[in-house]
């Protein structure tokens, strides 16, 4: 692995420090994948011939699988939970490699802090990956301020989620397989954020997509789960197509694919030109797939079919934020393309609002969080769209904290609900909030931690989400006032109007966020419990291996805002450094940000800023109050009352059915493709043309020629002689007269 040229980083302040061990970051989880993958090849247990569950096979998800359909559980009812033979090894290896990776990331971060001002990225070249004529792609990693932030989030939150998984997944027969996939995911995710060029990043991009597919369909024996995995994979391919086209455009027009080269040569591009706009829009198409934005968001809610820690790690904290990272990483391109940036911001805002409205009427606790994730990702795209790249990364970080906490907390809830139902052999849905209620008495720790996360995501002051969300909304408002985006126009609408609309949508989405999150808390933890007496006796706090990571995440959710405190806050309460993240990321995205803001660090006046903050806080607080006043009686009702309220009319019904987008996509895209495939490609091309004409047709032709040939073979020597004579005469005639 140590093939890097000495010349590459010789003069760099980071050479010779812990940063030289950069290559080890993705290799550690990869080693974990290899170990756990080998362990997973051993079947979970040896069942005797008399064991009734023997027919299920070793790979069938038995034991603890909270998310699976209840009807699959008959077999093991009454059996003790089935541990994988090597569960204890997997429990050590899986989280350990992540912890080591995190420790390495921290030491690299410390080395970066110690190296003083770093203006150029630290690029490590390992080997020539694709030498093909003029195209020479090197397998190189790039360490800079942006990638280390991502690495710290991925390995840090990843470690916590791995630890949580020990409790959540331990009784699953596929336990080592689960950790193998999770380790592989982290490895690819680190390649994604460390890659020094678009193709290397694309490998990580595809790799995390693969792991996402594998983990969504982890309990693949239920068809719904396998279908959800396929949906995620296929929808992501559409986005990846855009990413690839962008890479091709860059190579064809700029002749470089590494970030440094593209950034350098992008100076040749005309600002606002067609080419750079096309590249950025195609890159953004890739983002809409990976980061679940309109129109490609539909896979993410379905991805909740996977185990809950997977939803926390992949579908909330890390993978889905890859699109935000991509835009921030490509800030040198997006800042040259105001139209593309406006599109990003507008799509983000519409997604934030749209997904938040759907989240209002979902009953599955994980679906609420899934739409919340889509909505929050929309916020991040507002940020990177309006050129507030730091704000986007800031919200990415805080969102990773509080959304991971929310998902893991819901995982604890599902775990406890499932255990209770399992004990009483009931087959109710452990994820349906209508079955929950009153859990605060049984799970007080989780209850408190979930409220911390809820306040953080709602944007209540001093919690992490308040600072990041406020910075995004403030940036959108400021850019509407004065920026290259405001001067540009999108489809004939002036950019400033678009940006004011983006701000307004963001504000309404903040209100809705507070409402749906409070609603989720009310239905889950408040009121009376809606299970039965027998179930209630079984409910208690989840084990410490699950609650421990929640506490760490809650601390981060509460104080994550200290990463980037705004000036108006430190003016009032000087409790920390102002805008640390801004300063930290300045060498990476500072130039691009300045380009969008006309070269000035455009700040809003203090009064405007206070008004904006006041509006955001008012939206969050009123959202919580609205939810409390409107939903409290319903949430406290019995199970029957809650179910009656589930039959909605009018707009509520539309929301509960997610605007019928899935149905519309089915009708407009999926069904036509299926019908064309079935009628034209299968019945027509495959059965008709290939089987009929080519395969059977050639057989018929051969048979026909054979029949004709056998008719010539009459066996009459006289006839043959005539044929010979006629032939000889023909040849002679040809020679004589030809």
């Amino acid at each position, binding site marked *: 692995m140590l093939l890097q040229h000495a010349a590459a980083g010789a003069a760099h302040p980071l050479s010779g420090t812990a940063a030289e061990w950069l290559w080890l970051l993705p290799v550690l989880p990869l080693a974990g994948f290899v170990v756990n993958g080998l362990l997973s090849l051993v079947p979970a247990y040896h069942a005797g011939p008399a064991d009734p569950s023997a027919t299920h096979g070793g790979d069938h998800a038995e034991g603890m699988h909270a998310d699976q359909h209840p009807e699959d559980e008959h077999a093991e009812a009454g059996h003790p939970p089935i541990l994988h033979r090597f569960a204890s090894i997997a429990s050590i290896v899986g989280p350990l490699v992540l912890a080591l990776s995190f420790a390495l990331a921290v030491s690299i971060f410390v080395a970066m802090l110690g190296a003083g001002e770093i203006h150029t990225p630290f690029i490590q070249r390992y080997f020539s990956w694709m030498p093909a004529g003029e195209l020479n792609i090197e397998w190189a990693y790039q360490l800079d301020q942006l990638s280390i932030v991502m690495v710290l989030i991925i390995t840090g939150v990843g470690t916590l989620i791995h630890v949580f998984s020990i409790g959540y997944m331990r009784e699953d027969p596929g336990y080592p397989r689960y950790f193998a996939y999770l380790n592989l995911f982290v490895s690819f995710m680190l390649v994604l954020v460390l890659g020094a060029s678009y193709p290397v990043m694309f490998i990580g991009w595809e790799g995390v997509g693969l792991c996402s597919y594998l983990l969504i369909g982890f309990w693949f024996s239920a068809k719904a789960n396998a279908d959800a995995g396929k949906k995620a994979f296929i929808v992501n391919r559409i986005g990846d197509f855009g990413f690839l086209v962008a890479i091709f455009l860059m190579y064809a027009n700029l002749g470089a694919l590494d970030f440094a080269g593209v950034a350098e040569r992008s100076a040749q591009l005309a600002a606002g030109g067609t080419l750079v706009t096309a590249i950025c829009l195609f890159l953004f198409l890739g983002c809409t797939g990976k980061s679940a934005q309109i129109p490609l968001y539909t896979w993410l809610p379905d991805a909740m079919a996977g185990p809950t820690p997977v939803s926390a790690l992949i579908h909330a904290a890390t993978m889905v934020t890859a699109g935000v990272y991509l835009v921030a990483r490509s800030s040198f391109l997006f800042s040259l393309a105001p139209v593309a940036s406006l599109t990003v911001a507008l799509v983000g805002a519409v997604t934030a609002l749209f997904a938040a409205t759907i989240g209002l009427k979902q009953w599955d606790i994980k679906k609420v969080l899934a739409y919340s994730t889509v909505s929050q990702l929309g916020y991040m795209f507002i940020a990177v769209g309006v050129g507030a790249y730091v704000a986007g990364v800031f919200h990415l970080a805080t969102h990773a904290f509080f959304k991971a906490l929310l998902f893991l907390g819901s995982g604890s809830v599902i775990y406890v609900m499932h255990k209770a139902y399992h004990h009483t052999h009931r087959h109710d849905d452990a994820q349906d909030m209508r079955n929950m209620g009153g859990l605060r008495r049984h799970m007080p720790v989780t209850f408190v931690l979930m409220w911390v996360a809820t306040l953080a995501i709602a944007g209540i002051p001093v919690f992490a989400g308040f600072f990041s969300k406020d910075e995004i909304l403030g940036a959108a408002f400021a850019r509407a006032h004065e920026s290259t985006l405001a001067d540009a126009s999108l489809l004939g609408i002036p950019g400033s109007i678009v940006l004011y609309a983006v701000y307004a949508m963001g504000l309404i989405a903040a209100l809705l966020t507070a409402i749906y999150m409070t609603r989720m808390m009310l239905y889950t933890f408040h009121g009376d419990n809606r299970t039965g007496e027998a179930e209630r006796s079984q409910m208690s706090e989840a084990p410490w291996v699950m609650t421990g990571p929640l506490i760490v995440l809650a601390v981060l959710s509460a104080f994550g805002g200290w990463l980037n405190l705004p000036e108006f806050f430190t003016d009032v309460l000087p409790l920390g450094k102002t805008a640390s993240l801004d300063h930290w990321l300045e060498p990476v995205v500072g130039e691009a940000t300045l380009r969008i803001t006309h070269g000035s660090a455009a700040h809003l006046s203090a009064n405007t800023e206070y008004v904006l903050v006041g509006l955001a806080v008012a939206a969050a607080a009123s959202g919580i109050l609205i939810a409390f006043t409107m939903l409290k009686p319903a949430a406290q009702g019995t199970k029957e009352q809650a179910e009656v309220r589930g039959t909605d009319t009018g707009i509520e019904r539309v929301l509960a059915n997610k605007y019928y987008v899935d149905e519309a996509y089915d009708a407009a895209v999926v069904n036509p493709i299926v019908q064309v495939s079935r009628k034209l490609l299968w019945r027509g091309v495959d059965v008709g043309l290939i089987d009929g004409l080519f395969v059977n047709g050639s057989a018929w032709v051969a048979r026909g020629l054979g029949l004709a040939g056998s*008719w010539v*073979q*009459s*066996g*009459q020597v*006289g006839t043959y*002689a005539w044929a010979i004579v006629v032939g000889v005469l023909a040849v002679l005639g040809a020679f004589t007269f030809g």
Partner: protein
Amino acid sequence: MINEALFFSAVLFTIGVVGVLTRRNAIIIFMCVELMLNAVNLTFVAFSKLYGAAGQIFVIFVMTVAAAEAAVGLAIIISIFRHRETVNLENINLLKG
């Protein structure tokens, strides 16, 4: 002189061909084939007058092969007759496809 010889051999050959084409008796067809061979031999001899002795040597070869062929051919015909009591080719079509 050569013209007469060639003309004569052409006539002989044509008689042989017509015989092969029109007759059904295997023995007669066989004889007609011999006639054609000898017509060719005559042509060889005639041309040897112009182009040297190679033609005459070739005739020896042809006669040798013809003798061998006659021996094999007649044996086959006799064998067929023993089996089917006929040498009429219209009744012998074992090679029909």
